[in-house]
């Protein structure tokens, strides 16, 4: 079972064409580092989100590769230029083959 939980994404509803918009994305995940020990001193196996990406209008605009040093519930803030109305697709993949997606709609108006 994948430990990928709820995703929370913040994208402005609308923006003017050419405007640089701020995007925030977070997903619930323990990001088990593999360096922790359980109550009997055995290491807890690593289970992390390995990658996060964001596509805007079918084109990848952000990709992150995560290592165990990324905190629980990985969070990213980044920017993009509003070019055309469309969908933003957020994808998280864990190291157990699990995947979670989230979409957000951006309306782009003429400046």
């Amino acid at each position, binding site marked *: 079972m994948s430990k990928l939980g709820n995703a929370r994404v913040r994208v402005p509803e609308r923006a003017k064409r050419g405007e*640089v918009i701020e995007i925030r994305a977070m997903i619930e995940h323990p990001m088990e*580092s593999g*360096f*922790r*020990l359980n109550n009997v001193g055995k290491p807890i196996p690593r289970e992390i989100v390995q990658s996060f990406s964001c596509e*805007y209008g079918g*084109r*990848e*605009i*952000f*990709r*992150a*590769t*995560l*290592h*165990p*040093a*990324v*905190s*629980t519930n*990985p*969070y*990213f*803030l*980044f*920017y*993009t*230029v509003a*070019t055309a109305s469309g969908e933003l697709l957020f994808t998280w993949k864990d190291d157990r083959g699990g995947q979670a997606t989230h979409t957000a709609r951006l309306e782009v108006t003429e400046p």
Partner: protein
Amino acid sequence: VRREARGTTPATPAGWFGVGVNTTASPEVTPSLSEPASARRRALRALAAGVCLLVVRPAKAAPEELAAALHETFGGRSITPGKVTLELPKLAENGAVVPVTVTVDSPMTEREHVKSIHLFAEKNPLPRILEVRLGPYNGRARVASRIRIADSQQITAVAVLSDDTLWSAAVQVEVTVTGCGT
């Protein structure tokens, strides 16, 4: 009355909270305090410091591993300090969640933009923290996240620009509660 007030008031916070570890303050304090109490306090403080050192010093990746990771990622290419701004708290109370922001001085145009940003830790169990890929479509070369920092150490950010030059920034972070094991 006046002497007593001078002697006791600074002694209490220093003793209880262990803030005033400065030995220069003790001679002033001693006359109004009984000798054994202050000696015991000093002994306890020394013991506490010793215990902290023993507990908070687990084996960690050495800076050589950071050098190895840098070499593995960028080959032998030279990395120049500059163009990158790495924002991290100087003192991180909780090493498990440390906010980080990386900004690169770049116009983010088709001709001149940031291709990727890499974050490295000098003393975490693994030197790599995270990598992000960017392009001209980002408009602004700024990325924020939250990371784990195992111990007080230097964090390094390296940016790869579109002309394949490498730029970096490093920040020393003091960690009160370790980020390893959390």
